[in-house]
């Protein structure tokens, strides 16, 4: 890898790190209800919303009421989105006269956006009206992101509070997150993207006559406003089919850099919010350090593998790495780095086609998702996923020394560990279970685009991406069939809510506990030893669970490719 490549990666990490403290401080103020510099403008709006909804902002909820409120809100959001997609032909802002979305595809898309997955079985510019993009998708981008963040906040309160019955108010947290955190950041980001060349218009597609005299229809639309929240909220559902590879959705290397930074910005800052709210910022940095170690390892493998290129094509005399499915303006480093970031976080936006990555380059994104997207992770979801692993790590550490495990002064007992294991186990069930069933169904296997082990990887990637709520794909797989639409939607819903509910149960049970003062026997959780142990537990749990499936997919493909073997359809 070149010096320039290392520099791009180093600058990226430094910018993300520089944002952690200021964003963390600001979000802490927002969620502890303190005044911020935006309060003079937003406080009146907030009050009006509470009055309209009959919300008493002083009234806090038990973890169960908090979770039920979130679920009820999601059912409403799901129905609204489904209705908009099904009725888009009768609604305004539809200059290209798009017809209604098919039932199974609308179900899949609704599940996809409500769960912050944003899997695209639809092609944005060829199926959706502008109203569906704005009222349907942009709005869900905000709300599913806000939901992830507020659930993480509720879990943090569980760690931070003592002998408390409540973990906060879902309605207040959601409103404040949307108004004070997401919207104010999206406005300057939208303008930045438009400046870089992203369209923001309600006009119909452009009809041009090319220099050679052919007709070219160029899809445009209100892209920038959706792009801003799509990255910031780690949603990842593109306005266009090609997502952030489309020159209108990512026009320059600079817009690419800002997109990568905003994927990690809020998720990384939440570790700082965690540290601040539990009263020791070092606890947040320790968690971010564990994330950082795994992130850099993934970046190194993917960038190296893509820069080395595919042995099959190199044998033909090509040099310059694997450029199939990559945009020239981003190059190898800008594409490979983006792929690792988007899967480490639960974003799922892509600026290159992961299906065309080298075998190992495409395996790292899969591993990132299989570990549960806890490397920074989706906004909020990454932190609560990571805290679930922290509970398990503390438990393992306690077993090693024969003491009752404790974290931040809270005793970790059977109930927390059981809930943590439930959350951890539901992901492999949906990922590996879904894959196992699909590969024995001839109709599901027929959707595969690439022959050989790569075809297995396509299916494994699909169920992995759905259950981890990522949304990126090995796009060759024809996922828009009734079978995939329904089973992937099931994977998304289980992968989202069956992690959330146990995590919230942990929040409730921790909040109710007393704090025990630290003694000389307390295992310090802000040092390198803890970081190492946490990374070890994550890799062992993930490695043991997923290694066999990776062995028959990307690993065997890598070995075959290195030996010069290729695969043909129909053989």
């Amino acid at each position, binding site marked *: 890898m070149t010096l320039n490549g290392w520099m791009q990666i180093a600058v990226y990490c430094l910018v993300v790190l520089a944002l952690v403290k200021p964003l963390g401080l600001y979000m802490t103020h927002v969620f502890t209800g303190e005044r911020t510099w935006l309060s003079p403008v937003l406080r009146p709006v907030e009050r009006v919303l509470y009055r309209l909804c009959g919300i008493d902002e002083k009234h806090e909820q038990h973890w169960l009421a908090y979770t039920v409120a979130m679920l009820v809100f999601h059912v409403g959001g799901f129905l609204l989105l489904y209705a908009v997609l099904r009725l888009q032909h009768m609604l305004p802002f539809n200059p290209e006269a798009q017809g209604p979305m098919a039932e199974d595809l609308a179900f899949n898309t609704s599940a996809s956006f409500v769960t912050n997955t944003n899997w695209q079985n639809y092609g944005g510019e060829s199926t959706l009206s502008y109203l569906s993009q704005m009222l349907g998708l942009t709005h869900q981008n905000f709300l599913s992101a806000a939901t992830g963040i507020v659930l993480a906040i509720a879990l943090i309160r569980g760690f931070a509070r003592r002998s408390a019955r409540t973990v906060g108010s879902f309605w207040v947290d959601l409103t404040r997150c949307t108004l004070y955190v997401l919207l104010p950041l999206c406005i300057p980001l*939208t303008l930045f993207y438009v400046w870089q060349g992203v369209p923001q218009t309600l006009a119909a597609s452009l009809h041009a006559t090319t220099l050679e005299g052919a007709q*070219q229809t160029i899809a445009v639309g209100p892209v920038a406003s959706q792009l801003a929240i799509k990255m910031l909220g780690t949603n990842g559902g593109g306005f266009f089919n090609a997502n952030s590879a489309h020159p209108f959705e990512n026009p320059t290397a600079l817009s690419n850099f800002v997109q990568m930074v905003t994927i990690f910005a809020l998720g990384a800052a939440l570790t700082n919010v965690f540290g601040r709210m539990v009263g020791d910022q070092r606890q947040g940095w320790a968690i971010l350090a564990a994330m950082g170690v795994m992130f850099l390892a993934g970046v190194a493998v993917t960038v190296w593998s893509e820069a080395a290129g595919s042995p099959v094509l190199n044998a033909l005399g090509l040099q310059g790495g694997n450029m199939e499915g990559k945009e*020239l303006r981003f190059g190898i480093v800008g594409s490979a780095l983006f792929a690792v970031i988007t899967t480490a976080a639960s974003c799922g936006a892509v600026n290159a086609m992961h299906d065309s990555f080298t075998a190992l380059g495409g395996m790292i994104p899969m591993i990132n998702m299989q570990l549960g997207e806890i490397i920074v992770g989706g906004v909020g979801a990454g932190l609560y996923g990571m805290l679930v692993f922290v509970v398990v790590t503390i438990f393992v550490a306690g077993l090693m020394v024969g003491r009752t495990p404790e974290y931040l002064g809270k005793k970790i007992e059977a109930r927390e560990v059981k809930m943590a294991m439930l959350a951890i186990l539901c992901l492999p069930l949906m990922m590996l279970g879904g894959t196992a069933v699909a590969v024995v169904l001839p109709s599901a296997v027929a959707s595969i685009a690439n022959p050989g082990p790569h075809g297995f990887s396509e299916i494994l990637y699909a169920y992995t991406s759905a259950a981890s709520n990522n949304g990126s794909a090995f796009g060759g797989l024809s996922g828009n069939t009734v079978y995939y639409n329904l089973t992937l939607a099931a994977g998304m819903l289980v992968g989202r809510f069956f992690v959330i509910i146990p995590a919230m149960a942990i929040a409730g049970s921790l909040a109710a506990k007393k704090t025990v003062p630290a003694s000389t026997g307390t295992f310090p959780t802000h040092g390198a030893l803890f970081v190492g142990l946490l990374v070890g537990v994550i890799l062992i749990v993930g490695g043991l669970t997923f290694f066999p499936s990776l062995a028959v997919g990307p690993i065997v493909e890598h070995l075959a490719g290195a030996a010069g073997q290729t695969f043909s359809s129909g053989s």
Partner: protein
Amino acid sequence: MFAHLRPALVLLVALTAITGLAYPLAMTGLSAAVFPREAEGSIVRGPDGTPLGSSLIGQSFTSDRYFHGRPSATVAPDPSDASKTVAAPYNAANSGGSNLGPTNQALADRVKGDMAILKAENPGAAVPVDLVTTSASGLDPHISPQAALFQVPRVARSRGVPEERLGDLVAQATEGRVLGLFGEPRVNVLELNLKLDSLSTR
């Protein structure tokens, strides 16, 4: 139960109106005022005002008289059977990549075929990788400077222009990394070809 439903329903409607309508519409108005050219899609117009394309969206060039972009894997619905698709390079109404995997024989065959054509065109030089690989969007507006220089002999022959002049043109059209750091050096094919046409008419 109603205590749960009222905040859920009213807040859903209110936040939908704010984030799904007010925000995108306000941003549309603001963008049109601040960056009108970019907001409508960076349209390139001919002398008579007709749109020739967008400077950000690649277009298909096949004539020897023009520099060519990268191969494009975009498709369009088959006019004779709507359930099938046909190849339609640089279809800016349906972006997408080839999604061919690294060990797929079809990819190796395609690259081998394209390399043979390019080698015949310019036997002396190594084939640049971006000229035989499809982009992720199928709409990549750029090629590498090496890929532009590789095509200079063919365009020069076809137009009867000295190669040195075209080499200068490519050098002028080459953009460096953003801030000297991000991305890759590149040439915008549509803008290069527009320069080429103005060169010939002068």
